[in-house]
């Protein structure tokens, strides 16, 4: 029963994602005006910043699932935490790649240490990348899940602190930021918000999808064990 319900939700999520994300990018390219300072290259903003925002929120969500896991011991929260981190790491990779392309197009360099968001993201990405070796290094399933949850909580607390620290480290004058989200004309802001919503839906769809696949594999494993026991 639960699986049937899940697949309906997954389908709805996927459809919503396509609609909202499609609308967002249509708005970004056809309705929003071209940026006066940066020109056409500013269009990357509608991709890079929503990806980054959703990735970060995803890691925070993972920390919340992890807290639930530690409080209740229910393995479903561990699965949700793991998949949330996983999808956010993939989004994070996209952030770094699109950020590098944007930097190259804006300033002629593939990397810019003076861009605080990009640098913060690199550090956070490096941290969450250690999540996988951490999990593989602990064999006992229950302990692995518990330790992963502690990690997810620690890392989640780290994210905002890291962004603050990197921002403080920038030279006080002339940090090179891609753009500020504040001070955007309405049409740009609206397009951005729709893209942001679309990315959030994409994230949720992928997380749901992956959780479903994991559940299916786990069920199959159980069935196989049951069948092999009775033959």
């Amino acid at each position, binding site marked *: 029963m639960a699986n049937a319900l899940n697949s309906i939700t997954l389908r709805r999520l996927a459809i919503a994602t396509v609609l909202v994300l499609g609308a967002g990018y249509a708005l970004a390219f056809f309705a929003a005006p071209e940026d006066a300072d940066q*020109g056409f*290259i500013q*269009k*990357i903003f509608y991709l890079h910043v929503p990806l980054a925002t959703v990735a970060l929120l995803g890691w925070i969500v993972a920390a919340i699932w992890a807290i639930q896991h530690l409080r209740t011991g229910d393995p479903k929260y561990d699965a949700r935490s793991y998949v949330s981190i996983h999808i956010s790491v993939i989004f994070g990779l996209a952030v770094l790649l699109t950020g590098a392309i944007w930097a190259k197009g804006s300033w002629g360099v593939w990397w810019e240490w003076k861009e605080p968001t990009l640098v913060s993201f690199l550090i956070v990405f490096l941290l969450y990348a250690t999540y996988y070796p951490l999990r593989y290094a602990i064999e006992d399933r229950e302990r692995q899940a518990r330790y992963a949850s502690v990690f997810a909580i620690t890392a989640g607390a780290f994210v905002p602190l890291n962004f603050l620290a990197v921002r403080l480290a920038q030279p006080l004058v002339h940090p090179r930021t891609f753009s500020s989200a504040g001070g955007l004309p309405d049409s740009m802001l609206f397009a951005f918000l729709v893209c942001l919503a679309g990315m959030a839906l994409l994230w949720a769809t992928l997380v749901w999808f992956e959780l479903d696949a994991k559940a299916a*594999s786990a069920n199959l494993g159980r069935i*196989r064990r049951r*069948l092999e026991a009775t033959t």
Partner: protein
Amino acid sequence: MIPLAIENADRYVGGAYLVFLLLLLIYVAIMAAKLSRIQRELGSLAELADRPSERLPRDVGPVRDREQEIEAVRQGDRG
């Protein structure tokens, strides 16, 4: 500040969106592989589930013989 490579802006924007699309497609490909693995596993489990019904009569045979013995004795008692 005048952005560099103003003529190539299209390429960079296109490149960025392409990277995103490629990552998404790679993810879909990996999930498709997982799905086909699940299908194969499901297939082999279906086979496993069908097979034992051939063996059961043999296994249950001695039990059924014994049941008939007990039934015969019980009928003998009644009669």
